[in-house]
């Protein structure tokens, strides 16, 4: 039996956006950096169907290699449980890292408590240990992970004022 069907000319066929295009759309719409799983979830809701997470991860990596996206990775001494954090630029990543509460927070409970304890403060690890009940080795590890070593040395002077902080060998004048 002969059946007639209407077929659009190829030029008029509405093409489905590629994963790469969808990733860029999601990233432009998002103010903060996202994990691959979050990008995948948003792409699925945009398409109205499921796509492979691996494909999304691969495209994200391609875009990162091409210099379109930025990410935090091991080279920058960072590794997240959810994977790499991708953003259009470092500003987006910085914005994401600045979120301490809610579902977009990337910090664990211990990390969040440590950051809050140090914010606008000068504290010893012993005080943090006593107040939060965290083990001192965990505090040391978190400090090295989250922060940076101060560029100062402690100099012994002697007498009533036996020590003074100085900037990497250079004396700080008050």
């Amino acid at each position: 039996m002969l059946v007639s069907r209407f077929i659009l000319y190829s030029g008029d066929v509405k093409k489905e956006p590629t994963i790469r295009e969808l990733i860029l759309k999601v990233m432009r719409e998002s103010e903060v950096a996202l994990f691959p799983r979050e990008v995948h979830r948003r792409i699925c809701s945009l398409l109205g169907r499921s796509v492979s997470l691996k494909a999304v991860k691969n495209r994200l990596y391609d875009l990162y290699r091409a210099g379109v996206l930025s990410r935090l990775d091991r080279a920058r001494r960072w590794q997240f449980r959810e994977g790499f954090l991708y953003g259009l630029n470092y500003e987006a990543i910085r914005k994401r890292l600045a979120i301490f509460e809610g579902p977009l927070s990337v910090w664990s409970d211990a990390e969040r408590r440590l950051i809050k304890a140090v914010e606008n403060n000068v504290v010893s690890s012993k005080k943090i240990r006593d107040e939060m009940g965290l083990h001192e080795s965990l505090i040391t590890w978190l400090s090295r992970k989250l922060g940076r070593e101060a560029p100062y040395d402690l100099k012994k002077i002697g007498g009533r004022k036996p020590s003074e902080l100085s900037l990497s060998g250079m004396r700080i004048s008050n």
Partner: protein
Amino acid sequence: MIPWLKWIYIYGNLYLYDDRLPWDEVKAKLEREAFWLSDEGRRRVMRGEAFEKFLEYTYNLIDKAGE
């Protein structure tokens, strides 16, 4: 990762501070902490403790004399 979070070891003790605070304020606090951790600071703590014990002993003597 947190640009303002800095750490420093003072006589083997880890200190964390917010780099956004005025350096003079941070420096004063850290130097004060360093003083109490130094030999001189520890010596003064021991002398203070000995003095407290002596005071306690003296007050006990006075209380006993009063009875």
